């Protein structure tokens, strides 16, 4: 998903092999500001060690969905996502407030247009932050959002095309795995990164962009 809010940096510079902690710190602030400018209620820098992983019961519950997709439950058997996340040093956790009356859709269809707009919003913020990070030279930046991408981008389809052998995603570059599907406990992670204003007892939708 390419955000309409997105503008390319004026000077795209060649990729550097030098790790510059000062530049990274400045760029993370810039990316947090971008998320907030796009409507995030909060954004915080985190390290992989701040990510709280769910117990297996949640993932087991996801396996029982009647609305499966390549990202719900996350289905990449020959690659280890958790280990991969720990290859990063820094990322950005973002959230938007959700309707307090929003039901737990799990991976199923999202009935309310208002709720659908919220899920799309968190995807849009994550996409824009990830793209901004990419053009700043963090070409391995990787974003996660909320909800089952099939419910959000392919609700009218009878199945997830990407889940079939030899078939691709019909909404490429849009859908991202949810944090939950990646095995991350969003509520505990939000508590750990001390986002001001976030009441973790209330409903929220969260996203994550691992940057560098």
């Amino acid at each position, binding site marked *: 998903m*390419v955000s309409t809010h*997105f503008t*390319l940096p004026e000077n*795209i*510079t*060649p*990729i*550097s*092999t030098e790790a510059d902690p000062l530049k990274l710190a400045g760029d993370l602030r810039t990316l947090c500001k971008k998320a907030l400018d796009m409507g995030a209620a909060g954004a915080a820098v985190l390290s992989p060690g701040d990510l709280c992983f769910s117990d297996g019961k949640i993932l087991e519950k996801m396996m029982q969905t009647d609305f499966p997709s*390549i990202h719900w439950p996350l*289905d*990449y*058997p*020959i*690659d*280890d*996502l958790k*280990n*991969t996340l720990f*290859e*990063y040093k820094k990322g950005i956790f973002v959230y938007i407030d959700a309707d307090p009356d929003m039901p737990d859709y799990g991976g199923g269809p999202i009935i309310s247009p208002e709720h659908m707009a919220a899920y799309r919003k968190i995807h849009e913020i994550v*996409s824009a932050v990830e*793209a901004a990070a*990419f*053009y700043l*030279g963090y*070409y*391995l930046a*990787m*974003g*996660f959002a909320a909800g089952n991408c099939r419910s959000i981008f392919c609700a009218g389809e009878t199945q997830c095309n*990407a889940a079939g*052998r*030899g*078939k*691709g*995603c019909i909404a*490429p*570059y*849009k*859908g*991202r*795995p949810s944090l939950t599907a990646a095995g991350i406990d969003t509520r505990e992670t939000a508590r750990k990164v001390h986002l001001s204003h976030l009441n973790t007892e209330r409903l929220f939708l969260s996203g994550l962009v691992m940057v560098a």
Partner: protein
Amino acid sequence: MAEPFSDNGDPEKMEALRKMAITHGASNARVVSTADIPIDPRVRFKCMVPKCYMSGRCGHCPPYGYPIEKTINIMKNYRQGLFFHVRVESSIIAAKDISSVITSGKADDAGNLYSLGGHYMLVYTLVNMIRKKAIQIGFSRTEGFSASNCKDVLCFWKKGCQRLNGDGACRNPEMSAPSMESAGIDAFKLAAKSGWQVYPIGALCEPQSVKRGMLMGLVLAA
């Protein structure tokens, strides 16, 4: 300034391969030690999160293709490789709407789809030629890595990757090769370490956004 690479072994034979690559169209080529080739699981995941339009549609593209462990094991069997790139003008690789043209597979009036496809074909051809030449001059085994997905380059006019959708046999087993990125090799980092100017080029880029693009290939020889 390129960083020095360690232990190149068989320098004369590798120089012969390097010269051949340049003669046949590589813009630059460098002998690298496998110890200096960065392998990173994030690179493979970037094909899947978010999903690239080819992810799952080509036998070499994640979630298929070489898992990281396989690439690491391959590297253990080699000491050196030839890393090369083919330069692509930004007017082609960062042409307006080239991303949607590639995804749709419909040729554009400016000819950028076929021009870019020709550059990719050169990378696959070079990988294949270098591997053959390596055997001719005395290496006993080789492994090749190319750029992007082989389905769009070698089987553009065919419906589906036969390895995934057909009887399991690749239509072009000799020319086909996994891309560096699909195998988890961080080609950008290796290029930067080689002193080559490599730019992050995405769908939003336009010709004036970046100076140039490059497509990279790697052949290991032992």
